[in-house]
């Protein structure tokens, strides 16, 4: 090969990649130098690097598909419209053989692999539905295959922590009016001993019955009377008021209560005097996480239209069942890409420690999937202490880091502390696999034993193995073999 290499005629400008000492010495001699703080790619990078290089040949197609995915995400118009029994809006729940179908959080999982809280919540739900007389019989029924288990995600639903949804439970309905799809989520039961953390005693079941019989119908009436509650603008205000909508929903819960209070009053006028109304308003006011479940149904309604776009590398769902962490991509159909779930890092309520903690759990990572939760940490400095990161400036760093694995900033949802920059939106599986930056998720921590409830809160990380697998699955969908 002949070459026409030409030599630099004058003092070189050097980019130094690796040993810093070389840069220091060159700089000391007055040579223009820029040092790259090189770090080794993460372990297992070779396979990912190979796939990413292969995907490079489809760059234009992927970019077009991702632009469409982002367009759909940002065009969403989610409205909280109703409350209905789950069995009425998810017809499979009543059509199932023996009518015994339980929806749970996370990717698919069989009874034998479920964690303690998940089993506890299912036993409680079976008793609640009257499929067994007591918890013992319920567990037996579940273990013997007398109940079908399916992910919420397969039926347009989501649920926090254990996420258990059965036919007679009241679910909130969010309609994405831009795309005419609907999503569902149980009503948040409050803090402490609740079914989403695996609690299942009489007090828990009684509260569920009240939600089913009194609160759910009342909220449904109020919403119908109000003509629905537009959620996108509510989130904007919540961000400005210090919520990130996963770990902290103080502002959004209050804004919801304020917006619905008159409609509650009117809807309650034919009920038993003021008692149900008062108890219902107090229920919302007493639960700072009330909005979380609304936000989750909203997030699901935003992401579902993003699913099924060919060659789109956006993450459409992230979810955990307490055993596995699973993700789905827009461009890979119905497939889940799962890996063992990690332990959250965080702070514990007095008397509890890491030893008591259950691994990460819940469909609530759908909040991070749309750019809220840990992705919007910068808007919620108050959360930082709780999730163990400490300083307010650390919160900004969280959001900035997540900006490195997303494709856009959501112009509708801006963060004052970042000079009005939007929340990072649209996780690109390629960016995660290339950088090794794990999506962060703000989460509550459940006790590993069923029935105890929440013991702390912190930050969990999506396992990179999910993204590595998803990258491979994505490449296969585009014709990669080998």
């Amino acid at each position, binding site marked *: 090969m002949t*070459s026409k290499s030409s030599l630099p005629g004058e003092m*070189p400008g050097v980019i130094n990649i690796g040993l810093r000492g070389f840069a220091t010495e060159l700089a000391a001699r007055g040579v223009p130098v820029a040092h790259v703080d*090189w770090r080794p790619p993460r372990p297992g990078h070779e396979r990912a690097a190979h796939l990413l290089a292969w995907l490079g040949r489809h760059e234009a197609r992927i970019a077009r598909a991702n632009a469409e995915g982002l367009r759909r995400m940002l065009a969403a118009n989610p409205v909280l419209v109703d409350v209905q029994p789950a069995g009425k809006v998810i017809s499979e729940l009543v059509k199932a053989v023996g009518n015994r179908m339980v929806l749970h959080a996370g990717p698919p999982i069989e009874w034998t692999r479920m964690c303690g809280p998940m089993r506890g919540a299912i036993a409680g739900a079976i008793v609640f539905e009257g499929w067994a007389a007591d918890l013992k019989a319920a567990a037996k029924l579940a273990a013997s295959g007398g109940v079908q288990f399916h992910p919420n995600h397969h039926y347009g639903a989501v649920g926090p922590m254990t996420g258990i949804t059965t036919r007679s439970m009241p679910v909130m309905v969010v309609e994405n009016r831009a795309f005419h799809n609907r999503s569902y989520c149980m009503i948040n039961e409050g803090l402490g001993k609740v079914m989403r953390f695996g609690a299942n005693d009489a007090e828990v079941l009684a509260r569920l019955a009240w939600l089913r019989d009194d609160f759910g119908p009342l909220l449904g009436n109020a919403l119908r009377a109000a003509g629905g509650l537009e959620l996108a603008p509510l989130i904007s205000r919540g961000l400005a008021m210090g919520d990130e909508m996963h770990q902290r929903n103080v502002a959004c819960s209050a804004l919801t209560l304020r917006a619905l209070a008159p409609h509650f009053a009117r809807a309650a006028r034919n009920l038993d005097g003021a008692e149900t109304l008062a108890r219902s308003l107090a229920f919302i006011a007493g639960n700072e996480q009330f909005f979380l479940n609304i936000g989750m149904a909203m997030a699901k309604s935003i992401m579902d239209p993003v699913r099924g776009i060919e060659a789109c590398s956006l993450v459409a769902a992230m979810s955990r069942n307490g055993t596995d962490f699973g993700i789905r991509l827009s461009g890979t159909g119905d497939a889940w890409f799962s890996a063992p779930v990690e332990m959250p890092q965080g702070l514990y309520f007095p008397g509890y420690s890491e030893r008591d903690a259950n691994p990460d759990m819940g469909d609530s990572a759908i909040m991070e999937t749309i750019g809220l939760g840990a992705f919007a940490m910068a808007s919620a400095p108050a959360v930082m202490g709780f999730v163990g990161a400490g300083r307010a400036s650390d919160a900004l760093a969280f959001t900035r880091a997540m900006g490195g694995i997303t494709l856009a900033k959501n112009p509708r949802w801006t963060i004052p502390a970042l000079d009005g920059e939007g929340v990072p939106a649209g996780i690109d599986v390629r960016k995660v696999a290339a950088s090794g930056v794990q999506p962060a998720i703000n989460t509550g921590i459940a006790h590993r034993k069923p029935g105890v409830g929440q013991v702390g809160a912190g930050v969990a990380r999506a396992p990179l193995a999910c993204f590595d697998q998803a990258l491979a699955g994505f490449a296969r969908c585009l014709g990669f073999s080998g």
Partner: protein
Amino acid sequence: MKIANRVRRGFYADSVALMRIARELASAPGVMRASLMIGTPSNKALLKESGLLSKEGESARPDDLIIAVKGKNAEEGLVLAEKLLTSGTAKSESSESHPTFASALRALPGANLALISVPGEFAAAEARRALEHGLHAMVFSDNVPLAEEVALKDFAAQRGLLMMGPDCGTALIAGVPIAFANAVPRGGIGIVSASGTGLQEVSCLIARGGRGISHGIGVGGRDLSQAVGGRMTLAAMNALEADAATQRIIIISKPPAHSVMKKVVARASRSRKPVTLCLLGAKNFKTPKHVRLARTLEEAAGGKPGETKFEFKSKGSIRGLFCGGTLCAEAQIVLMDHGLKVASNAPVPGARGVVKRASAAPHQLLDLGAGEFTRGRPHPMIEPALRNQHLERALREKGVGVVLLDVVIGYGAHLDPAGLIAQVLEKAKGRNPQVIASVTGTEADPQVYSRQVKKLRAAGVVVAASNAQAAKLAALATLRGRPSPARRPRRSR
């Protein structure tokens, strides 16, 4: 003896920084050995081999750092290590750096050279990126796969760029010494070298002789192998021929593959500028008259370094302890030219390989920069502790009459190698073999040539004007010391 390990999760620092800390630790009271390594499987195996790995260290993952200390104060050692690490990191954070190549290039849009010193498995990707952005690449990293080297060199040629290395530690680009190089004046001599210390020695001899260098282009130790086919050497010859500042060209290499040598000789004979070929130890090749052949680096540099007068009769053997591989090769050639039998761990054609112990061959020259010595520790040019250990041993060893050393200074090298040698000699005072050395460097180097020479002389070292002359002095002293009629040198210069 206690072994203590500590694992820092998700910690990365470059290995040279870690080794410097390890060295500081090892000098702490009650600490016998210390090592800081990233927890890759191969590093863990290395630590285990050296008896430094505990259960905790075993648990480290490839993105963790293992701090391992052996000694009765092992625990205190760990505390000290943490302290050194934090002070180190604090320092590195304060000076400016960029997270990615792209951001560095944005900050320095005029950049035309990328200096790459990441672990070998990652180096090719970094080099390719630099070439793609139109920068010349200099790859200091070794262990880059051969196929990658060939591909990168072809890619660079297509773009009219230099791909120096892999395993290239020395270059002089437009008068600027890069990485391990010396402060030499600019001038009309262009050098293409497959050897870092070869380039250093020749450029320093030229500089000390009052002349200067246009460019010194490193091509990497494998460039003249059959597989790489001299791709970069030929490209660099073309570039120097076209370069207005260059008047003559010197090519330096260890013996190349035969077919490659033919190509290089053919190219040299077509050259419009005078070419000197210094293919250390190469035999049986013919060149046209106008291509000059140099048997040693000193000959390649031309000019006449002053002679050193030295009358000494050595009754023992020669022990050479070299930091520079090419300096070791040159010394072997000089000794053999004087009829001496030589063994080396890096033998030139005609020399024997070292079989484990020194006793096998009378005159033994070790390249301490070779892989078997530098595995898991810094090169002796940066950190001479390894060479000084060998020096201590050689000074005590029976039958050694002359110890032959190279002292390479300049950018990147240790700040006072002569001072360290003097310390070792001071400790070993008594019945010592004679130490003969040369200093590869210039007055403008940070260590200052004359100061290093002075320190060595004060410690009783005979300092020759070049590495070749140091070897010659050693050979003559040995020949003089022989009991029965001394053999005449086979070839005198």
